[in-house]
């Protein structure tokens, strides 16, 4: 069992590593495309192909090895200088890169199955195309091509057999016990019982057709056989081992899960009972569906027809079956495939690569903590109060640092994700006949691994939009007085407690009037309503509105923007749109930086405590009660000459009673806007562990969670963006 596990682990590592190599190969290929003489890129592509080839051989994925070998051959020629890189060649190599990924996915999902016909065809096509670049005699190429063609012929047959795979995630086991089993002191019960401990016998059927009737039946002979469906993750070998002891006295036939229907045909042929009878049993046991059974019997009758005519041919057929159609069972091929894939995906998403420096730093800090801990223990035995206080302070400082660096471990620079989009931009712009350059800024900005994973789909969508509709074709751009090559910029940076990701283009920009008209048409706004540009643009994110064709024809943006927005909001983020007609469009995504633990700023209101994310607090100030009361609804104060809208939290939370004489104002900033929150008192900084609110409170949007204070009291964590929204709505309501 341990061996099997470690093999699995190694395979997982192989797949993860191969994908990483592919990623870097892609980057090099794209670089090579820009500069075909770039030796460093050629070398790194060569190394990538070589490493994948070697590793694939090690795990027995020969086809991947074969394929990368051809790529390697080509690159050897390039390195030797006998072949020059052309644009077509890099294009082809990119296709090959994609194909290796297809192969990897195939072998990760169902390594026991042969490639399907489509993949086979692509395999051959690409190999042939790669070979045409290779110098050397024509015959050589010919022979290698025909060699591959032969390969494809054989595997082609397996490919077509693919359609006849039986969808059944159980092993099918046929047992026919020998007559003397009982006399030899063996009991089938114990073997089958043992088997049932290794998995789950989904169904089992006792076969006793051969048992004679009446006096002829000899009760100490065994006439029994069993057909069963067995669900388990053990290997074929292990199943055979179960019956090892009885193997001389028993004929065992094991069909792996999801196998070719031909295996069942073989089984029907080999079992002593009549085909129909066995067919019925297989159906009853649940190994085959009606349709599959019909197919199997049809095939079977073809076989026996052959037998009558030409016995030799049947023999040939048998050999073919043996050689090609029986899948190579890999040792641990038994688990139901889909479940397997799912499990692997889960396992993959649980893996995370950590910068060794970060880990060292963390270990270092833990070491310090241990020392400080023993120091605290020692010092508490003395009466040195100041010493105790100091040691405790040291320790809590360390804990804070550890928290920070632990959170930091999950942080990954976004640059890697950004550079992955280079391919998307390249492919799409070619497809659309546009020239687009991707500019990446702020690639070092770090954000949480899970956030990165989840943000990449919406980002691709936005990039597609920009290429599709934002940036025009070169002639259009030139006639508008712009450079023919459009620029798409991806930018990431930190801003008060959040991370901002921008996707901007220098394209056409949004057409304000058209959007406005469309919105009126759809009854979303009234013609007399006045909107600021950014408010109007937010309409694009409404479902239904976005899919309207007119809008997407004119201004571009649209399809699925509501989905983008929903995705981003599910990450507690926000999305804004800025656009200037003729100059371009910028989509700005704000994402929270924080996860489970935040630095909070605690305030007091009546008897309750509230926590604001410290990152969003820019300053605190004091104000006279009289000054507040004199505002008469216009909730603005003068902050060093700036207008600062504020909200009286007592009013908001409907707390009875008056504010103290000198209430405090906490100034928070979010997405470049400042607001004041009037509270009774400031408590101070506070490390906050966010606990989610129950579902009952899900309507309370301005609460993002709660936390438990050292005293056991509960404090609410305020969701500043939502609060700000509320301040605005408040204002509108009053007007």
């Amino acid at each position: 069992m341990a061996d099997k596990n470690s093999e699995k682990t190694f395979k997982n590592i192989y797949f993860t590593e191969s994908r990483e190599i592919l990623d870097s190969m892609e980057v090099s290929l794209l670089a090579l495309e820009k500069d075909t003489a770039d030796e460093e890129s050629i070398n790194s592509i060569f190394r990538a192909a070589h490493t994948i080839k070697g590793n694939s051989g090690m795990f027995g994925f020969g086809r991947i090895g074969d394929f990368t070998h051809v790529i390697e051959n080509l690159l050897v020629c390039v390195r030797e200088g006998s072949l020059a890189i052309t644009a077509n060649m890099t294009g082809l190599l990119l296709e090959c890169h994609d194909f290796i990924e297809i192969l990897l996915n195939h072998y990760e999902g169902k390594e026991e199955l042969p490639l399907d016909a489509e993949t086979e065809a692509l395999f051959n096509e690409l190999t042939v195309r790669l070979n045409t670049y290779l110098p050397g005699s024509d015959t050589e190429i010919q022979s290698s091509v025909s060699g591959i063609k032969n390969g494809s012929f054989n595997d082609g047959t397996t490919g077509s057999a693919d359609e006849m795979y039986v969808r059944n995630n159980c092993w099918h086991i046929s047992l026919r016990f020998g007559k003397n089993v009982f006399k030899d002191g063996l009991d089938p019960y114990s073997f089958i019982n043992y088997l049932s401990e290794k998995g789950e016998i989904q169904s089992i059927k006792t076969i006793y057709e051969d048992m004679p009737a009446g006096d002829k039946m000899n009760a100490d002979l065994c006439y029994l056989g069993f057909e069963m469906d067995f669900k388990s993750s053990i290997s074929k070998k292990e199943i055979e081992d179960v019956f090892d002891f009885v193997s001389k006295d028993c004929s065992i036939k094991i069909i792996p899960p999801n196998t070719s229907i031909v295996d069942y045909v073989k089984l029907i042929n080999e079992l002593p009972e009549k085909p129909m009878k066995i067919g019925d049993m297989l159906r009853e046991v649940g190994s085959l569906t009606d349709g599959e059974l019909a197919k199997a019997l049809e095939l079977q009758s073809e076989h026996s027809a052959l037998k009558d005519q030409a016995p030799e041919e049947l023999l040939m057929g048998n050999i073919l079956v043996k050689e090609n159609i029986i899948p190579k069972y890999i040792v641990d091929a038994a688990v139901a495939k889909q479940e397997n894939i799912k499990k692997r995906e889960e396992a993959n998403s649980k893996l995370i690569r950590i910068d060794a420096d970060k880990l060292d730093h963390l270990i270092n800090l833990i070491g310090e903590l241990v020392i400080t801990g023993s120091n605290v223990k020692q010092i508490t035995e003395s009466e040195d109060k100041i010493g105790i206080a100091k040691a405790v302070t040291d320790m809590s400082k360390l804990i804070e640092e550890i928290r920070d660096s632990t959170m930091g471990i999950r942080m990954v620079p976004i640059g890697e994700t950004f550079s992955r989009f280079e391919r998307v931009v390249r492919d799409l712009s070619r497809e659309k006949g546009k020239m687009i350059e991707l500019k990446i800024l702020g690639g070092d900005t770090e954000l949480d691994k899970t956030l990165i994973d989840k943000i990449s789909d919406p980002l691709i969508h936005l990039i597609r939009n920009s290429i599709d509709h934002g940036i025009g074709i070169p002639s259009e751009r030139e006639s508008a007085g712009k450079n023919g090559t459009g620029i798409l910029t991806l930018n990431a940076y930190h801003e008060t407690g959040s991370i901002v990701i921008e996707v901007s283009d220098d394209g056409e920009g949004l057409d304000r009037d058209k959007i406005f008209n469309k919105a009126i048409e759809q009854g979303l706004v009234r013609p007399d309503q006045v909107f600021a540009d950014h408010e109007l643009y937010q309409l694009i994110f409404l479902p239904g509105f976005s899919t309207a064709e007119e809008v997407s024809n004119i201004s571009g943006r649209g399809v699925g923007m509501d989905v983008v927005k929903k995705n981003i909001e599910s990450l507690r983020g926000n999305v804004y749109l800025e656009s200037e007609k003729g100059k371009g469009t910028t989509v700005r995504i704000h994402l929270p930086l924080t996860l489970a633990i935040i630095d909070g700023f605690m305030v007091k209101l009546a008897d309750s405590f509230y926590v604001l994310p410290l990152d969003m607090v820019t300053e605190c100030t004091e104000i006279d009660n009289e000054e507040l009361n004199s505002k008469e609804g216009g909730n603005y104060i003068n902050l060093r000459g700036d207008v600062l809208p504020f909200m009286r939290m007592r009013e908001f939370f409907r707390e009875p009673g008056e504010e103290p004489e000198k209430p405090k104002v906490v100034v928070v900033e979010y997405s470049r806007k400042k607001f004041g929150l009037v509270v009774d008192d400031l408590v101070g900084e506070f490390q906050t562990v966010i606990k989610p609110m129950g579902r009952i409170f899900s309507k309370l949007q301005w609460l993002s969670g709660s936390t438990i204070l050292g005293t056991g009291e509960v404090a609410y964590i305020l969701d500043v963006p939502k609060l700000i929204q509320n301040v605005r709505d408040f204002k509108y309501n009053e007007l």
Partner: protein
Amino acid sequence: MKLKIIKEKINNDMLHLSLIGEMTVYSAVNLKSILLKELDRCSGITMNLAEISEADTSGFQLLLFLKREAEMLGKSFRITEVSPRLKSIFTLYREMI
């Protein structure tokens, strides 16, 4: 042979048998001929197997056989009670007799 058979005649030709002891390969041949004879002579058998302390697959096979014989002769064959040991065999083979 560690097996005791208690024979009871219920009305007419119906026979009720209580088996006590072991239904293993050691007793199978004898038990088969006894039971087959009894089946011949009556119009139906009910069996109480609650006291079967030990059984193996040959016992299971014997019961399958008797059931099939009874069916062929157009007689009834029914098991009224089974012992835990027999029950575990029936459960594994998912066979109701």
